[in-house]
């Protein structure tokens, strides 16, 4: 572990966390995205979340597909291994990586084209399989990297500079709920205060966590006819709750209206403190969540917040009954049955 002696005067980005890592230790290469692109704000939120959670950067594996969004893992957590794989297939690569080493934190970064168009199948199946991961879609309603064609999450009637989308949208949140994700949230790249605690909670969740982040493409889909623009989301953002992520239960100091604060303890002991903004919203009820989202989407609202949480998630490794140590740490001695066993096997074939 690196030990950093504390200098007397420090730039805020050099204040070490509990492990002695500074904010800078979680940064990556310089972004090559357009100035103002929502994706960069998500990278910043990820850096913040990992820093605040005192995660050793190298214990994270970042995997992505193809797109502007999928490039971003290069721009955060430079001390982590990353894999910019193929278009729409990050989920399978992440699945295999997770099977190989259950001890790392898996962060899947994708776009709406990557996950809702070409990769819809892999997206759903990966979630079905209850892979312990955080899966983020940086959702701008278009294919940024191929210059602005509509993606499958674009709302019907959305207008870009050159065309109108006539097809019905795919709601990734609804898909994730149906497929059995145990942590489902939506946020907005322009709302760091909402997004950072959600990411932290998702990382601490030991199951399949999905976050759909509306992330405007300033280049191709930030105009008046878009439902994924900064202006539209700001105006129609219907946050059902705000989340505090706290590592241990502490006293509630602020004053809240009765019934507006709900605490959920996660498997790892961390506490999610939800400040209810819509009192009728219940994030522990999957079917309720699906109905609520549909109803409010009809009204043109963008529902954000922690939408569903199962504090006792499933995990693929439990279902597969794999050994506690990572499979990639097993060597010849542990894996090879040897010549003695082979004699008996040969006999079975005679």
């Amino acid at each position, binding site marked *: *572990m*690196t030990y950093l002696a504390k200098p007397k005067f420090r730039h805020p980005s050099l204040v070490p966390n509990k492990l002695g890592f500074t904010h800078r230790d979680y940064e990556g*290469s310089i972004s090559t995205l357009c100035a103002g692109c929502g994706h960069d704000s998500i990278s910043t939120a990820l850096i913040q979340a990992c820093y605040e959670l005192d995660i*050793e*950067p*190298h*214990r994270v*594996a970042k*995997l992505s597909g193809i797109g502007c969004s999928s490039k971003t*893992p290069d721009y955060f957590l430079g*001390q*982590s*291994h*990353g*894999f*910019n*794989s*193929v278009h729409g*297939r990050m*989920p*399978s*690569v*992440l*699945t*295999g*990586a*997770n*099977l*190989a*080493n259950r*001890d*790392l934190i898996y962060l899947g970064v994708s776009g709406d084209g990557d996950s809702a168009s070409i990769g819809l*199948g*892999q997206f759903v*199946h990966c979630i079905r*399989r209850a892979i312990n991961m955080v899966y983020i879609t940086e959702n701008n309603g278009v294919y940024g990297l191929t210059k602005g064609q509509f993606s499958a999450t674009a709302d019907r009637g959305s207008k870009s500079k050159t065309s109108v989308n006539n097809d019905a949208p795919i709601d990734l949140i609804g898909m994730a709920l149906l497929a059995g994700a145990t942590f489902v949230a939506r946020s907005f790249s322009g709302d760091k205060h909402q997004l950072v605690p959600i990411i932290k909670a998702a990382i601490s969740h030991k199951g399949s966590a999905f976050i759909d982040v509306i992330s405007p493409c300033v280049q191709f889909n930030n105009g008046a006819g878009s439902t994924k623009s900064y202006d539209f989301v700001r105006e129609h953002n219907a946050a059902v709750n705000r989340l505090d992520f706290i590592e241990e239960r502490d006293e509630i100091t602020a004053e809240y209206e009765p019934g507006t604060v709900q605490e959920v303890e996660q498997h790892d002991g961390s506490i999610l403190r939800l400040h209810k903004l819509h009192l009728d919203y219940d994030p522990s009820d999957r079917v309720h969540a699906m109905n609520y989202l549909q109803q409010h989407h009809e009204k043109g609202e963008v529902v954000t917040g922690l939408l569903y949480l199962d504090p006792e998630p499933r995990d*693929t*490794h439990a279902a*597969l*009954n*794999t*050994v*506690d140590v990572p*499979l*990639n740490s*097993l*060597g*010849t001695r*542990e*894996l*090879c*049955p*040897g*010549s003695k*066993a*082979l004699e008996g*096997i*040969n006999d079975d*074939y*005679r």
Partner: protein
Amino acid sequence: MPKIEATNDFVVKFANVNGSGSASANEMFARSILRMGVPIATRNIFPSNIQGLPTWFEVRVSGAGWIGRRGGVDLMVPMNPQTWDKDVASIDPGGYLFYDSSKPLPPSKFRQDINVIGVPLTEMANSRWQLPRDRQLLKNMVYVGALAALLGIEQETLQKLVEEQFAGKDRLIKPNHEALKIGGDYVREKLKGACGLTVKRLDKVGNRIFVDGNDAAALGAVYGGATVCAWYPITPSTSMAEAFMAHCKKLRVDSVTKKNKFAIIQAEDELSAIGAVIGAGWNGARAFTATSGPGISLMQEFIGLAYFAEIPSVIFDIQRGGPSTGMPTRTQQSDILITAYAGHGDTKHILLFPEDPHEAFELSAMAFDLAERLQAPIFVMQDLDIGMNSWLCEPFSWNDSKLYDRGKVMTYEDLEKGKEFGRYLDVDGDAIPYRTLPGTHPTKGAFFTRGTSRDRYAKYSEEGAVYVDNMQRLLRKLETAKKYVPHPIAHHAKEPTRYGVIYFGSTSAAMAEALDVLESKGIHLDTMRLRAFPFPDEVIEFVNAHDQVFVVEQNRDAQMRTLLVNEGAIDPARFISILHYDGTPITARFITKSISERMTLLGAARREAAQ
């Protein structure tokens, strides 16, 4: 009436209806011959169907030890009325027709030049058993009993096989024993001497085993240290993934914790299967998928990425005849080009060609070492003939002193000591770079994996010169691969010759026999059995050392020849293709005939031409 007379040298073919329970009875018939020390070769010919369509099972009895398909039928057992005419027509003149004579058949249903042996199988089974299921299954054992008596197969040997098969379900032993006896008694009483084919105890099987290639390759994967398997069902590869699961349950469960030292997922498609293999390989586990042609075509993009990003991965291609509505249950060697150059852009891959289940085990285990040593996808090119038929082959063996070759992986200690790390740096001059696994070191050795848009240090770059530098190294890595892959096996003819023959994979068994026959006709050929691509230098040297080289393969387009011409920059006129691609395994007769004809034309087999 001529009668084929033969001892330990004939072919028996069963025609059945898929799903009628005949498979286990036929298998028992075959094994009883093996237990008498007489080598056999069996082949299933089956449709893409679960119940109702015709299937065939061929048993070649060969005291001489030939285990390729011979071709022809000496004794036909047509238990399927649908295919009767074709089955009867396939019998060699002087051969035998063994049939269920319960219902009378018009003379037009028979042939004059064959010997007809009728046994009222249905009648006997129906008068003894009441339940339809019993009647059906035990009728199969009645014919096994009758055939055994006709051919002189020892009754005790069969009885013992029944006991082994039904161990644990002991109440089934008695009726099966009885069925064998009913069939046998009928023949002993009424049909003495009806058949000129005989099985005679020999000592030619030795310690060999009888196993199918998918089972063997799956076991090889267990021995080779595979821990992750991701697959999608497709004939004829499915039984490999299933066998891997079965072997793992026996061999890979931690004795103390009862937890699994393996993870198998049935993916939603082949794209996902190969994606998971690549993710696991990237993360340091030995991983594989098993598939067939259509699956390979779906995996192309990922295979390309694995080549460029240099990710260890193992792909078993159990080759079959083309598309899903092609001949999915028939054998071919027709995925050679699609695998050798799989992907997009300039790619070339490492292929291994096992000749039988024994070698499938060996090359399967070896593939995992090669994948990690060479940081590349490795294809194990089986086919349906090896994969789904039981073959008599040498027993599996393992050298316990051998440790897995995990290739060039930098550890925490290496990085800590300050060893320079560049993911795509050629440090040792063999073009194989060092890699690090995720999670190794808090501050050193992390990198971002991409296709080719990066430099030797894995930093983003789209510079032309940087790209070319990397692509040249990948070519040099393939040169290095030639040293590691299994080398071809060459054999000199008894007499010096200007002719050679190249073959590979499941053709091997039929080839051995064909060469023997050709030699007896005075046709001498030097031989080379390919075991891997890229071709080690001796392959090209072999071609150059002969005027003409036959290339025997089981596909239409002479795919291996194309690869030889292309990779060895060889004049195509040097090669003569012998191609068999009707979906059945190639036979010694086919090879012998094709090569003899060509040699006659070439005026080379002087003795033969003079006849």
